[in-house]
C-alpha cells in the first residue's frame, strides 16, 4: 500500500481535500492544499477560524476527526502515503515519528494519570525505551524546557500543575520519541502574554536543539513571526499565499493578507480630556470584593469614569478585572467600598437598584453564544429591553428595533426574524451591542468582547463601538487582557494585578515610558510583528 519513495521533504501534501459532515451533508473543509516541508524546517500556518488550519494539522498525521474524511489528494510523510495507510501503520508513526501539541494542555492531559506516565506512554508503546530510560529522558526534557523542579514535576497529576508549565510538559511529551515532525496547534493561545513568552522560547529552543521539522498553527501573526521559517496563509480551506517569514511580513502580495497585516493599525482618535471639576459619570471607591471571605479577589480598587470616555481595565487572568464589572453591575456586592453615579452612591446589590438605575449600566459579554438566548429571535432579544424600559409597543417597538439594527450595520429586513444560531460570531456580538443600546444606557461595560473573535471581525466591532461613541456620546468600560485593544480604543487605562490597581491614568501617561515595572513587563511581552523581537527581548531580559 505505502509507496516507499524518499525525497528531500519530510512531508508533502498534494491537492489535499478533506470533507466535514454537517446538516447539509458532506461539505469541503480543505479545498486542495499543496504543502512541502523540509527536514528541520518550521512552517507557520495562519488563518482565521474556519480556515481549516487545525484540520490540516491533523491531516499531516493522517488523522481525520470524527465527522470528517479524506476526499482526495495525498499526504506523504517521508515516503509513506498516509491517506491510504492502515490504522496500524499510522499508529506506528504517531507519537514516534510525528507528534502533536494541542491547544489546551489542561484538557489534553488525562486527569487520571501522572504527567510522566503519560510522557512515557509513547516510547513504551513504540518499544523505543524501557520505562526507567524513558523516565530519565523525560526528566532531561523537562530540564531542557526549563520546567521548575524537573525531577519531581513529572510525578504530579495534571491538575496540580499550572497552565504554562503543562504546555511545556506537553511539548516534552511530544519530543519523547524524538519525532521527525511536530504539529503545534495554537499552543499558546490560552496563555497570558507573560507566560506565553516562556513557552514560546522553550518551544523554539527545543525544536532547534533536535532539529525537528514543525508545523506551527496559530491565528496570531506576531507569534508565528517568531517561530516560523516560512508562513502559509489559509482562508476557508484554500491557500492564499506562502513565502519566507521576512518577505511575508514586509511585502504581503494578496489583498487578504494585507488586510490581516493592517488590523493592528486601527486607533481611535484621542478625545478632549474632561473639563476641570467635571463630575465623573461612574466611580468606584475603595472597593474590596471576594467570592468567599478568605479569598480576596479585588483589593482596594478606586477609579473614575467620565462621560463620553473609554476606560480600559487591563490585567492577566486572575487579576480581578472581571470582578470589577460584577461589582459595578451589582451582581457581586463588595465587602467594602461603594459605587457612585454622579457622586451619589448606587445600591450595592442589583436587586435593590431601581429599574432606572439598572437601565443606565448595560453589559456586553465575551461569549456571544451564551450571551444570547438561542431560542429567541433577534427582534425579541433587542426589542425586550426597549419594551421593558420605555414601554414601547407594536409598530413603535418594531421601528425602534429596526433603527437599532441599522445602527449596528445589519439589514433589518434580513435579520429581524433570525435566531442567534443563524448568525456569525461577529453578527452575534453586534446583536449583543444592540441589546445594550436598546436600553439607552449611560455606560456600557464590555467584558473581553473581542477576545473570542477573529482579528478582522474584532476590528470591525471596535470601529463600530468607536463610531457609536461619537454619535451617541456613549461611555465604555473595557475589560480586556489584550493590549492591542487597549491601544486602539482606550482614553484611560487601569492596570490591575492580583486584585490591586498597579497603575492608572490617561493612555498617554500609562503607555509612555517610564512605566511601572509590571506595566513594563506586560507591554514588553506583547509579541510584535518582527521576527527578531523574541530574541531581542530575551537578550534584553538576560
Amino acid at each position, binding site marked *: 500500500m505505502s509507496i516507499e519513495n524518499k525525497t528531500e521533504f519530510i512531508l508533502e501534501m498534494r491537492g489535499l481535500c478533506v470533507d466535514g459532515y454537517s446538516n447539509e451533508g458532506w461539505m469541503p473543509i480543505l479545498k486542495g492544499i499543496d504543502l512541502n516541508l523540509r527536514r528541520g524546517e518550521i512552517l507557520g500556518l495562519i488563518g482565521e477560524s474556519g480556515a481549516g488550519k487545525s484540520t490540516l494539522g491533523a491531516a499531516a*498525521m493522517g*488523522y481525520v*476527526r470524527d465527522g470528517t474524511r479524506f476526499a482526495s489528494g495525498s499526504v506523504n510523510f517521508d515516503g509513506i502515503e498516509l491517506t491510504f495507510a492502515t*490504522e496500524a501503520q*499510522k*499508529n*506506528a*508513526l*504517531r*507519537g*514516534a515519528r510525528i*507528534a*502533536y501539541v*494541542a*491547544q*489546551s494542555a489542561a*484538557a*489534553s*492531559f*488525562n*486527569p*487520571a*494519570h501522572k504527567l510522566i506516565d503519560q510522557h512515557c*506512554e*509513547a516510547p513504551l*508503546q*513504540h518499544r523505543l525505551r524501557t520505562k526507567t530510560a524513558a523516565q530519565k529522558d523525560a526528566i532531561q526534557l523537562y530540564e531542557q524546557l526549563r520546567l521548575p523542579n524537573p525531577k519531581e514535576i513529572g510525578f504530579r*497529576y495534571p*491538575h*496540580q500543575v499550572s497552565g504554562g508549565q503543562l504546555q511545556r510538559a506537553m511539548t516534552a*511529551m511530544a519530543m519523547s520519541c524524538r519525532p521527525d515532525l511536530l504539529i503545534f496547534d495554537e499552543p499558546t493561545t490560552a496563555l497570558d502574554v507573560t507566560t506565553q513568552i516562556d513557552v514560546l522560547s522553550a518551544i523554539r529552543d527545543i525544536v532547534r536543539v533536535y532539529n525537528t521539522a514543525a508545523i506551527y498553527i496559530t491565528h496570531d501573526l506576531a507569534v508565528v513571526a517568531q517561530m516560523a521559517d516560512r508562513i502559509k496563509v489559509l482562508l476557508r480551506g484554500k491557500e492564499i499565499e506562502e513565502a519566507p517569514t521576512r518577505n511575508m511580513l514586509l511585502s504581503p502580495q494578496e489583498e487578504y493578507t494585507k488586510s490581516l497585516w493592517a488590523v493592528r493599525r486601527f486607533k481611535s482618535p484621542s478625545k478632549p480630556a474632561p473639563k476641570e471639576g467635571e463630575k465623573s459619570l461612574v466611580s468606584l471607591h475603595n472597593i474590596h470584593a471576594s467570592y468567599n471571605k478568605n479569598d480576596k479577589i479585588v483589593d482596594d480598587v478606586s477609579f473614575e469614569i467620565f462621560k463620553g470616555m473609554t476606560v480600559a481595565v487591563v490585567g492577566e487572568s486572575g487579576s480581578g478585572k472581571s470582578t470589577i464589572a460584577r461589582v459595578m453591575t451589582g451582581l457581586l456586592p463588595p465587602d467594602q467600598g461603594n459605587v457612585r453615579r454622579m457622586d451619589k452612591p448606587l445600591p450595592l446589590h442589583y436587586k435593590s437598584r431601581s429599574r432606572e438605575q439598572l437601565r443606565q449600566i448595560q453589559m456586553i459579554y465575551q461569549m456571544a453564544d451564551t450571551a444570547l438566548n438561542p431560542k429567541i429571535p433577534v427582534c425579541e432579544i433587542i426589542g425586550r429591553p426597549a419594551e421593558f424600559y420605555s414601554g414601547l409597543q407594536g409598530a413603535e417597538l418594531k421601528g425602534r428595533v429596526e433603527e437599532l439594527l441599522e445602527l449596528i450595520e445589519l439589514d433589518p429586513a434580513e435579520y429581524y426574524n433570525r435566531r442567534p444560531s443563524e448568525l456569525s460570531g461577529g453578527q452575534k456580538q453586534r446583536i449583543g451591542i444592540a441589546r445594550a443600546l436598546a436600553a439607552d444606557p449611560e455606560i456600557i461595560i464590555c467584558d473581553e468582547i473581542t477576545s473570542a473573535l477573529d482579528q478582522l471581525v474584532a476590528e470591525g466591532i471596535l470601529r463600530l463601538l468607536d463610531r457609536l461613541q461619537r454619535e451617541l456620546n456613549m461611555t465604555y468600560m473595557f475589560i480586556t487582557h489584550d493590549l492591542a485593544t487597549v491601544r486602539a480604543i482606550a482614553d484611560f487605562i487601569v492596570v490591575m494585578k492580583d486584585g490591586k490597581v498597579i497603575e492608572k491614568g490617561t493612555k498617554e501617561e500609562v503607555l509612555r515610558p517610564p512605566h511601572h515595572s509590571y506595566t513594563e513587563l506586560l507591554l514588553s511581552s506583547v509579541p510584535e510583528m518582527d521576527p527578531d523581537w523574541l530574541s531581542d527581548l530575551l537578550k534584553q531580559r538576560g
Partner: protein
Amino acid sequence: MGDITFLILKRLGFGLMTLLIVSIVIFFAVELLPGDIAETVLGQAATAETVEAFRNKIGLNRPAFVRYFEWLSGAVTGDFGVSLVTDNPVGNAIAERLSNTLFLATYAAVIAVPVAIFLGILVALLRNTIFDRLTNIATLASISSPEFFVAYILIIYLSVKTGFFPPIANLSGNMSFPELLTRTFLPALTLVLVTTAHMMRMTRAAIINLLAEPYIEMARMKGVSRWKVIVRHTLPNAWAPIITVVALNMAYLITGVVLVEVVFVYPGIGQLLVDAVSKRDFPIVQACCLIFAATFILLNLAADVGAILSNPRLRNPK
C-alpha cells in the same frame, strides 16, 4: 487528604440522617391510619372492649414517640416486634427469608456486573456499527419490559417447552449447591436480564461521553490503539458514573426482587412483604420497608463514596 476525608464523612453523616428520617416516615406513616391499628386489624365488628384490650396488648396507649424509640432501638438489634397475624416475632420470620433474598441478589449480581461492564465497553468500542444499534434496541426493550413479562417468557421457553430449569423456585434445607443454583437459575436470569441492560447502556454512555475529551484525541495522536484508549484513558475517568449505576442496580436487585419472587414463588423477603401488605400485618411491613430502605441508602452511600474515591482530582489534592 483533608478534603476527601471531610467529603466522605459529610456523605456518611448525610446518609445516616436520611436513614433516620426514613425510619420516622415509615413508623409514623402507620400512625396516619384512619382510626388506628387496632380498629383496622379487628375491623368494624369488634366491640370497644376487644379493641381496647388489643390496644393494651400491643402497647398502643403510650405516646407515639416513645413507641418509635422502642421500635428503632429494637430494630437496631434485629427485634422488630411481634406479627399481628401470627403472634410470632417478626425478626425470626424475616431472618431466613432475608438470607434467601440476599442469595438470589448476589447470584444475579455476580453474573450481571462483570457481563454488563464488559459488554458496555465492547459496545462503546463498536459504536455506530450495526451491532451497536441492535444492542441499543435490545437493551431498550429489556429495560422497558416489566419483570413478570421477562420472567414468564423465560418460564415458557426454558422450562415448560424445554424442561431445562424448574419453573418454581421452592427451596428445601438439604439441597446441594449446584442444585440450588439450578433451582434459582430462572429468577436470577430474569434479574440479570433486567439489570444488565441498564448497566450496559450507562457504561457505554459514560465511556462515549468521554471520547470527545481532548485527552482522548491526544492519546490517539500518540499512536495508542483504540482498545487501549478505552481501557487506559477512558475507563479510569468513567468509574464514577459506572459505580453509581452498578450500586443503583444492586439496590434494585435487593428491592426490585419483589415481583420476581412472587412470579417464581421464591421464599424471600419480597414475598413476605407482599403477603403482609395484603394481610395488613403492619410490624412486618414496617420491618421489611426499613430493611429495604436501609439497603438502598447504604448502597447509594457506597456508590457516592466510590465515586469520590475514583476521582483523581480529589484523591490527589493540590
